Each structure stands twice: as C-alpha cells, then as structure tokens.
C-alpha cells in the first residue's frame, strides 16, 4: 500500500468520484485556476474543465444554495468553504433548507460541503474554527471528521454517494502533517462506525479529527507509565456510533474525551450524556473533557498553544484519571 498525505487522500477521493460519476462537480472560491487555498483541487480544472470545477463569486450562501438546487435536479455537488469558519455565512441554507427538506416534503438534497477546519497553524479567530457542533445539533445533516488519510478518502467517497447533506470537516493541520497507508483498490468508510485506533484496558479516550493524532501520542506516552489507553476515533459525528463508544466505556470504566472545539455544548457534552445514560453503572471515575476553552481562537503562539488541546494536555489528564 502507498503512503500518502491526508490532503492527497482528499484529492484522490474527489478525483476518483468525478471520474466515476458525471453528476459530481465542485464549486467554491478560488478552487479552479488557483487550485484552492490549500491546493486540494490543484490540477482539477485542467483535467475536468471549468464546468465541473466552478470558480464562484465570494458568496457562501449562493454557493450552498446553488449546490442544493443542483442536487434537487439529480447532481452531486461538492461545495468548498474556503475555511470552515466561513460556513456560518451560509448557516441558513444548510440548517433551514438542506437539513429540513427531506423531512418536510421528501426531496433529498445530496450535497457535500467541505469545511477545512481547525487550528495550530496561527490562523487566528477566523481561520481556525471547529464549528461541527452546530451541525451535529441539526436534524437532517450528517457530519464527519476524518483523522487519517484512509478515513479521509473513504468517508469523502461515502459522503458524495450519500443521498443526504453531509458536512465534511477536513482538518487543515492534518493536510500535510498526517500521512498513512491507503489501498489502491476502491473502498468506502461507512458513516456511523467508529474506529478503535488503539486497544487498551484502563481508560477510554474518545476523539476525532486532529485530536486523534494527539490522543494516540498521549496514549503512547502514558503507556510507559503502565496506563493502558484505548483510543476511539469517532470518524462520523452524526450518525454517532453509540455501540462502540458504550462498549469501550463499559470495558474500561474511565472516560476521557478530547476535542479541538469549544467546551460548552461541544461533542464532549453529548458523549458524556450518552455514557451517563447508558453506562453509568460501569463508571469508576468522573468523566474528563480535554477541549478548547470558551474563547474565540487566539492568534499569538503562546495564546493559541494554551487554547488548543495537544498530546501533553491529554496525557496530563490521562494521568489524573488513571490515579483517581
């Protein structure tokens, strides 16, 4: 198997899906001639032409609305938000139109919205956000957040083939930092299926996106101190794999949750509620959350480093939890 970057995996998924299905097309700001602000779609317009790689005006609402309309006519649009932060500009089209349409009158809206998210790159308050919780809260949307090249490719293929609106959070830090093996042959990663990235007996550490990488590093570190951590990568935030989460929680009895998004009403709160409702009797310690604080994402390195969870902060929390 070939080892490729997370970014290459996303490129490969888009390229292969566009070759497979003429209905798949891309639209977004600066994605064509320029190849996208992160060069995810570099070379696409030369191969597929300007009618399948649309450079649009700077208008997130029109981009999403256009994707919805084309999807209602049977196409498979993949809309790029230049940064996940800008998705708030099109909140209305996503939560009011795309999310409710099928429930309200039965017409499905098969769109994918790619949202490059996350910090650690000194992007500041408006180029670093992790707004997944808004969409996980919205009935009718599906939300995924891959952590590895394998999952990035497989989940994007599944997203494009899904008949429902999918918000695909691709982590910018992982684009070039994360490498992994991806098979040559065709595969998909199903939604609603978490992946246990590391088996362990003492603590269940639940993460997704960039925090999977940090969690695995933290687990490796505390393993030297005989703390055996199981790392559960959610991969799909909605639908959520309740069974895998609960099975691991019941096995270890100690739970830590790491996410890069803000603390209040983040995924960690929902996971805590789920575990409390369905695995309370198995718990040996209060659940721990390692998250960003409830502040905007700051720019200056000491501030952002204090803001963003990392392997060290997670390892410290794991030690405290092990000692409980």
């Amino acid at each position: 198997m070939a080892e490729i970057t997370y970014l290459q995996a996303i490129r490969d998924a888009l390229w292969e899906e566009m070759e497979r299905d003429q209905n798949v097309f891309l639209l977004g700001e600066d994605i064509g001639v320029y190849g996208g602000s992160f060069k995810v779609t570099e070379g696409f317009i030369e191969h597929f032409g300007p009618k399948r790689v649309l450079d649009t005006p700077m208008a997130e609402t029109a981009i999403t609305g256009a994707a919805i309309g084309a999807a209602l006519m049977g196409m498979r649009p993949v809309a790029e938000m230049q940064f996940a932060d800008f998705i708030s500009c099109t909140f209305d089209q996503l939560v009011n139109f795309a999310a409710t349409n099928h429930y309200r009158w039965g017409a499905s809206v098969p769109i994918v919205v790619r949202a490059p998210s996350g910090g650690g790159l000194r992007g500041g308050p408006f180029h670093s956000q992790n707004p997944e919780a808004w969409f996980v809260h919205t009935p009718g949307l599906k939300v995924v957040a891959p952590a590895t090249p394998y999952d990035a490719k497989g989940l994007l293929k599944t997203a494009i083939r899904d008949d429902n609106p999918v918000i695909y959070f691709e982590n910018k830090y992982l684009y070039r930092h994360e490498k992994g093996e991806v098979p040559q042959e065709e595969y998909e990663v199903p939604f609603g299926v978490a992946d246990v990235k590391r088996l362990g007996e003492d603590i269940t550490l639940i993460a997704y996106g960039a925090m999977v990488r940090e969690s695995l590093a933290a687990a490796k570190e505390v393993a030297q101190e005989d703390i055996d951590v199981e790392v559960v990568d959610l991969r799909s935030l909605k639908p959520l794999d309740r069974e895998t989460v609960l099975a691991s929680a019941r096995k270890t009895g100690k739970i830590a949750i790491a996410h890069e998004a803000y603390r209040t009403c983040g995924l960690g709160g929902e996971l805590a509620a789920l575990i409390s409702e369905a695995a309370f009797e198995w718990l040996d310690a209060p659940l721990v959350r390692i998250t960003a604080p409830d502040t905007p994402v700051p720019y200056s390195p000491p501030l952002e480093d204090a803001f963003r969870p990392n392997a060290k902060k997670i390892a410290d929390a794991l030690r405290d939890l092990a000692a409980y």
Partner: protein
Amino acid sequence: MDLTNDQLLDLYYWMRLTRAVDDRLMLLYNQGKILGASFSQRGHEAISVGAAYALDSEDIMAPMHRDLGSYLVRGMHPRRIMAQHLGRVTGPSRGRDGNMHGLGDMSLGIIGFVSMLPSSLPVTVGVGLSFWLREEARVALTIFGDGGTSTGKWHESLNFAGVFNLPVVLICQNNQYAYSTPVSGQFAIRDIADRAAGYGFPGVVVDGNDVLAVYEVTREAVERARRGDGPTLIECKTMRMEGHAAHDDARYVPQELLVEWEKKDPILRYEGVLQDQGLLTPEVQEEIKTRVMAELEDAQAFAVDSPLPDPSDLEKGVYHEADCYWDRDPVPES
C-alpha cells in the same frame, strides 16, 4: 400574445379557483379549523397564475406563500393543498409543514419554500446552474417579495446568476408591505427592477394586477433564458389586500390605499377584458363558477376525510435511505 381563446379562459379559471380556495382557507382559519397560520394571497392571482402559465412542464418553479395560483397551475391538486392546511397526512408534507410552507413536489417541478425568505432564491439559481451545466433547454423561476430583496442572499443570488448568465427568471411580487413594513422602509429606490442593472441583466416593471401583462413579460423572460441569454428580474407591482397572515388586521395600511387597489382587482379586471373580447359570456362564466365550486367542495371533503398523521411516524424520513418513509404511501392500505 400567443394564447388561444381556450387558454385565455383557462387563465381565468385558474384565477377564479385560486381566489375560491384562498377564500375558503381564510374561512377555515377563522372557524378555528386551520391552526397556526394562514396566508391570504387575495389580489395576487395575476402574478401567481400568469407567471406559472408561462413555464413549460419540464421547467422548475419555486413559489412562496402568496403564490397559491402557481401551485395549482403547475398541477398540485386542490385536495392536497387543502389537506396540507388541515394538517392531514395526504398533503405534500404529510403534516410536517403547515399552510403554504413546504408544498413541494419535484414530480410537478415545484420546490417547497422555507420561511426565511427568499430562501428558495439561491436554490432556484442552483437549479438554473444544473440546466446550464448539463446544457438543458430548461428554465428555473422563483417568486419573492419586496421584503426579501433586502437580504444578503438576494444580492448574492442575483450576482451569482449574472456571473454565470444562468437560465433563471426572478420575479419580485412587490405588494407594498413586508409584514408591517412599507416599501419606503425596505429600500431607498422606486423600482426594485432597477437593481438588475447592477447584476448585468435586464429588469422589467409590470402591472402585477394584469394577468396578460404578467404572462407576456414572464414568457419573454422564459424564452430569453431558454435561448441561453441569461436571467431577467421582473418586478410585479401589486398590493397586499389582507394582513401578513390571518391573525394580522393590517391596521397600519392606510384605508384609502386598499380602496384604490380594490378597484384594480386582477380578477374583475380580467373579466372585463374577456367580456370585451366576447369570450366570457354569462353562460361560460357560470360554467366556470360551477367547476370551481365543485373542485373546492371536493378538495375540502377529501381533506376532512383524510387521516391525520400517525405520531409513530414522527422520527421517520429525516434522512433519505432505501425504502424510507417517503417511498411508501402516506395512507396505509386498509
């Protein structure tokens, strides 16, 4: 004008049916049988009927809450519209959305609307985009109000349509009020149609109470779009004759304005035109009235006799999947 005598009378029938269904919906609301809200379109028949009549069956339309006539002309049965208002499972939303909201049916080329107006406008632009990408000679048309033109999504959509020169027809139903806000509080220009110049396509003002004028202008815009010549913005000037919704007595509207516009009632005006042409004889008028009343009574009876939705279906069909809720008949076979 490319309309035959039969089509001219057809327009009249649709306008009469629209008014009759609308009057009945308001009556049912006042009787406490329609819950929540009900939106009268009284006085807007020329726009909703004239615009929809200008489309071909393969075209797509996204009407809103005061376009009852458009839904009827596109083929949505009055039974289903009445069932929707009474929260019955036989309405297009199966009781999940109310009144004129969510009256969508892709098999009729109708996109159901969302309250955050003009939410259907970016989507209509997207439908037009799909026609342009696939090189299909089809047209997407939507209607929005004067209030909707103040939103960012309105401007983004027109700009997007202009940049790609999409086959769309964008109709503003300027009825002078958005809820209680008069147009003077909505924009600082006289004609919304002027804004089209800023997006690089034509804008036209038309008398929104003249069905033939609305039809003709829309038909021209539809043909222009179908030829690949791009979007048109049409501003139909009219007057909202009732409150925003049935609960609203609209006391903020000057009485003399309503008196003035009552004289321009689009149905009575069109009757005069048809009578002058000798098409609308008393016999024909009576025959149409009888047909309309039969349709109306049938629709109401159907809706009243239809079952309410089953609460056990509450969580079904949020997502599309194989053999999902929407693939099955709304009324289980007994």
